[in-house]
């Protein structure tokens, strides 16, 4: 379990992380969602004791990371797959990590096998593709068979096969009862990976909920209606739902009642309909809607 309490990180006047509190539970994949620059990586670095919080506290099973005796046996982390010396072989990289936490060196071959890098274990990590580097990073995270795992944007730059592999892998880790905390800026990715979500924007908590609940809350279904008697129809519908004009197409966008109900209401009043189409809000739109206020860099 990871517990953050009123976590803060300020760089001068910039508040990278601002009063952030959340809990990550074991046995589930928890997504850490937010636009680029929301403070996800900074938060993860604070969890791992790399950066010192300006205020607040974050603990792993009641302990600060720096208090852990052999931290790799408790927490495995992949923050950046490129944190490897390019002229060091994959095996040597894992070997020094293992020795540092008194993990048997035989474990190195095991994790190489798990991530499928056995064949290239003797090759220098500098020549690895991004996908291979990610696998090596995951091997490093798994080395100590830890209860808690942190991954920062693990699918960035991966091909579909790699994405699927990582997704299934994280589910397996969680089903083994581990705490899995994974960040992403893509809701569509998290919707398929995470059971719980912690959503942040501009360093502040936007939501902590289950993924299902978040999507249900965030995506609102609407119905598009077109009619030659738009003004009359709007009057009728306004009593039951929220109606907005879509001036571009000359149609009405109705929110709050189903297409079936709209059709029945129109029939009662003998209004002709030219279009009656339910619209499903996309996840990305909903996410953008939610974090709109907290995106740091806009394109104009």
């Amino acid at each position, binding site marked *: 379990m990871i517990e953050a309490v009123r976590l803060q990180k300020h760089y001068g006047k910039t508040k990278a992380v601002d009063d952030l509190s959340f809990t990550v539970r074991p046995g589930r994949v928890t997504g850490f969602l937010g636009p680029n620059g929301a403070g996800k990586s900074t938060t993860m*670095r604070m969890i*791992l*004791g*790399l*950066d*010192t919080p300006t205020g607040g506290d974050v603990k792993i099973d009641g302990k600060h*990371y*720096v*208090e*852990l005796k052999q*931290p*790799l046996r408790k927490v495995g*982390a992949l*923050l*950046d797959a*490129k*944190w*490897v*010396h*390019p*002229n*060091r*072989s994959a095996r*040597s*990289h894992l*070997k*020094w*990590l293992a*020795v*540092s*936490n*008194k993990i048997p060196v035989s474990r190195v071959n095991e994790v190489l096998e798990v991530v499928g890098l056995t064949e290239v274990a003797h090759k220098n990590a500098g020549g690895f593709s991004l996908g291979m580097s990610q696998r090596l990073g995951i091997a*490093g995270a798994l080395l100590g068979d830890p209860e808690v795992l942190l991954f920062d944007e693990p699918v960035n730059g991966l091909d579909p096969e790699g994405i699927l592999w990582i997704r299934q892998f994280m589910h397996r880790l969680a089903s083994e009862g581990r705490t899995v905390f994974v960040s992403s800026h893509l809701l569509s990715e998290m919707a398929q990976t995470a059971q719980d979500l912690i959503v942040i924007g501009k360093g502040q908590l936007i939501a902590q909920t289950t993924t299902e609940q978040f999507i249900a809350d965030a995506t609102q279904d609407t119905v598009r209606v077109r009619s030659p008697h738009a003004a009359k129809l709007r009057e009728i519908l306004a009593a039951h739902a929220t109606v907005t004009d879509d001036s571009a197409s000359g149609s009405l966008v109705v929110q709050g009642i189903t297409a079936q109900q709209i059709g029945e209401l129109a029939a009662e009043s003998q209004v002709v309909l030219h279009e009656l189409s339910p619209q499903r809000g996309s996840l990305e739109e909903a996410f953008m809607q939610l974090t709109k206020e907290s995106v740091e860099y806009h394109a104009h």
Partner: protein
Amino acid sequence: MTLLAVERIKLFSTRSPYWCSALALVLGVGLTAIIAASTDNGQLSLGATQFGSSQLALSVVLVMAALAVTTEYRFSTIRATFLAVPNRTSALVAKTVVVAFIAALLGEIIAFGSVGIAKVLSPASDLAITTSDEWRHVAGVGLLYGIGAIIAIAVGILVRQTAGAVAILLVWNMLLEGLIGIIPKAGVKIQAWLPFMNANHFLQLGGGDPAESPGAGVDFKFSQWGSLAYFAAIAVAMLVVALIVAKRRDA
């Protein structure tokens, strides 16, 4: 002990320490070979065998030691290190011990290798190491390298960039301390307190022409072993500052 093993694995699983060691060996011993070959047989002094080791090769060893730290920052493996060993002080001290030990060992190999090659090329010269001063002059090179490596690591931790750290170390060791002597009157007084000047003072052989040795005309405040202790104290002080900074700084 665990951390020493970790740093040993890290150091020897990349190529740069091998290259730097080979380069230091070639430059140090090579310069002695050139001096020996161009000096009349029988005229070569023991002091002349250590020009290469105490000046040229030292610079390469300083670069090697600085690289051991700056490459960790360059490739962010320092973060991987701090994740594996959250006690940053012990991780960095372990690295310092390993690198300083290897530097010292290399220093001894270069110093005695230089004497060896001089004996081969100038067999008639008296190059026997008999007095304690002569032993200090040759065997002391290893101590100089070991302590120099500590300074280089401290600079590496503070600067975090290879180019910056290497520039600082080379300019400091090869140019700055010597150039300060140009300042009228005050120059030599300042030089008496400069670390690498004191390091060279430690190595100085009694006898011969004192005007030829580095630091000539400087009125050192310490005995020769005192100068070494002073050099070591500065190295340790710099390392302590670097460790405090590394502990407080975000990795």
